[in-house]
């Protein structure tokens, strides 16, 4: 009898774990009563990983806030001995930062706009319209996403120069959209698969046109997906380097990524300006993701109630 009980308990604990929460290696190990040594090792590993991620950001902020003439001090201190916004002033006044920033903004707004709307429509169409060879199409889309950007950038340069899109914001927006769109479409496709078609049919029976049913019923339900695509495409655009580097030859058209890089390969590396520009580059990204994250979570809550 005790053996049966034992097995029963083990089974029920396994069941509970699989039903209640996703499998988590850390809690799993501690639940199973593995040795403290394991836990220590894992925690140490985590701290190390965290350090690798956090330290460059810390160093970036720390360097940006030092007076310019203290940046090259050896040995260097972790925290600045004196605070100064000198680097920020120099970045604004002595470099093309404002131009680069504007270019990056134009690129991001364009890419987010085009990618989110096209992904949404394409994803919806793929789930609602009977298209032959849909699965093959999906595989090809994702295959396109796997190409290294440099492989895409070179033929793009040739095409774009033929049709006069080199050095134009529109050309860059289209090119970067092409790299963000495959994943966006795929993601929206998955999201719309989870929106039951009967909800739109029910809206149509209530008197809504098919477009209205899409707009008022399906789209709000896929909102977390739309926001995920927006965040993803923003990240792609804001961080795009290879493609703008190739199809935007003139410096006044560079986005921040290319522009900041150029700070380092002029006669000397302007570390103070590089770090200050980097800090300012991170801020919009942080604000964008932080603002949308709220809606992303809200969306998941609504989805969870279905």
């Amino acid at each position, binding site marked *: 009898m005790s053996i049966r009980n034992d097995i029963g308990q083990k089974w029920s604990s396994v069941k509970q774990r699989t039903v209640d929460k996703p499998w988590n290696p850390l809690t799993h190990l501690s639940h199973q009563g593995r040795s403290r040594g394991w836990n220590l090792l894992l925690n140490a590993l985590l701290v190390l990983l965290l350090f690798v991620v956090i330290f460059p950001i810390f160093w970036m902020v720390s360097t940006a806030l030092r007076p310019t003439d203290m940046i090259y001090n050896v040995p260097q201190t972790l925290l600045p001995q004196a605070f100064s916004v000198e680097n920020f002033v120099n970045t604004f006044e002595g470099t093309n930062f404002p131009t680069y920033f504007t270019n990056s903004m134009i690129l991001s707004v364009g890419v987010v706009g085009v990618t989110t709307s096209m992904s949404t429509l394409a994803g919806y169409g793929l789930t609602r319209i009977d298209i032959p060879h849909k699965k093959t199409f999906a595989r090809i889309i994702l295959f396109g996403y796997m190409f290294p950007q440099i492989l895409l950038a070179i033929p793009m340069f040739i095409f774009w120069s033929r049709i006069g899109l080199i050095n134009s914001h529109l050309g860059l927006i289209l090119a970067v959209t092409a790299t963000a769109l495959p994943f966006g479409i795929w993601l929206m496709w998955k999201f719309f698969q989870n929106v*039951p078609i*009967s*909800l739109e*049919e*029910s*809206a*149509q*029976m*209530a*008197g*809504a*046109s*098919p477009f*209205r*049913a899409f707009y008022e*019923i399906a789209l*709000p*339900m896929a*909102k977390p997906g739309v926001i995920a695509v927006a965040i993803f495409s923003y990240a792609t655009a804001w961080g795009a380097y290879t493609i703008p580097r190739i199809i935007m030859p003139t410096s006044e058209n560079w986005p921040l990524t290319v522009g900041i890089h150029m700070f380092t390969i002029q006669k000397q590396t302007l570390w103070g300006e590089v770090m200050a520009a980097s800090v300012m580059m991170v801020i919009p990204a942080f604000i964008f993701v932080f603002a949308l994250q709220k809606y992303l979570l809200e969306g998941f809550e*609504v*989805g*969870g*109630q*279905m």
Partner: protein
Amino acid sequence: MTIEVSSLRKEFSSPSGTITAVDGIDFSIDEGDFFTFVGPSGCGKTTTLRCIAGLETPTSGSIRFDGEDMTGKPAHKRNLAMMFQNIALYPHMKVKENISYPLKVRNVPKQERYENAEEAADIMQIRELLEKYPGELSGGQQQRAALARTIVHEPEAFLMDEPLSDLDAKLKVEIRKEIQRVHDRVEKPTIYVTHDQEEAMTMSDRIAVFNDGGIEQIGTPDELYQRPTNRFVANFIGNPSMNFFDGTVDRASGETVVVSVDGRDVELRVVDSTAVGVGDEVTVGVRPEDVRLDRNDGDLEGEITLIERIGKQMLATIEGPQGEVRVTLPADNAYEKGEVIRLSIETRATHLFDSGSNDVVTRGPDV
């Protein structure tokens, strides 16, 4: 409004070829009818409903509302209301927004449509749930909200696609009553789709029994139960279902037909013995309540293999050379599982079907 469906045909294309879901059906529904499509899954009943709704376009045939051809009209222009099997409340809208959605698309001002939603919610007794989201409601409450949504815009007809099949037995009965209450209130035609013959029998004015893309019979619940026109309907309608014995006509004269079932003669009274000829292969259909058990006396023989309670009565299953026979018994019977027993058929309450076509040929006077 009246609904007229003629020669309706619907094909779907699939990778393995064309599938005909509905094949040339005709029927008409009168103002205020509670009309039910019943049949096994895959018989075409939902496809037919969806054609009437406008969610599917028929391959051929026509659908008329009050004589006006609606065949090509999109769903949102038909002014119908539909309840779906999966309820289909919009999870991102509050209950009151859900209920008033049909008014929103008709551009009714917010204030007015919320007032109408409250009225509909009062009828369904869910007023206190108006500010909640569908995800916070129980299954029965969700069905009530979905039902409230169908009545808010005064549709011309109600379409219900198995709305109760996901509910437990008790809730089913409760929501069934609500649906009937709504139907009686509005006096508009209701088309109700179900695979549950009991649901069909208790709710409907008229029933269409679907099978394999066609309609086997249309009639009132009584007509279908008492005068099924073929073996499929006889078997599908009624629970526990009818017993069938294959046999050959031995003699037929006057009001009497003698059928030889597994070598034993069974004498039956029928309304018209000229419908059969000697030597015809027939199937005798008899309901479980029209078979008698006796320890000594009877035409057929078998062993009781199962006795189970069905509500107030008991149902015995008897295995014999003529096949399996179901017999209803009073609860206080003295029979036991394993007993070998004799069976006799209530001679005036049988249905005779042609074994080839499965169509009814004649029946007893007391069915």
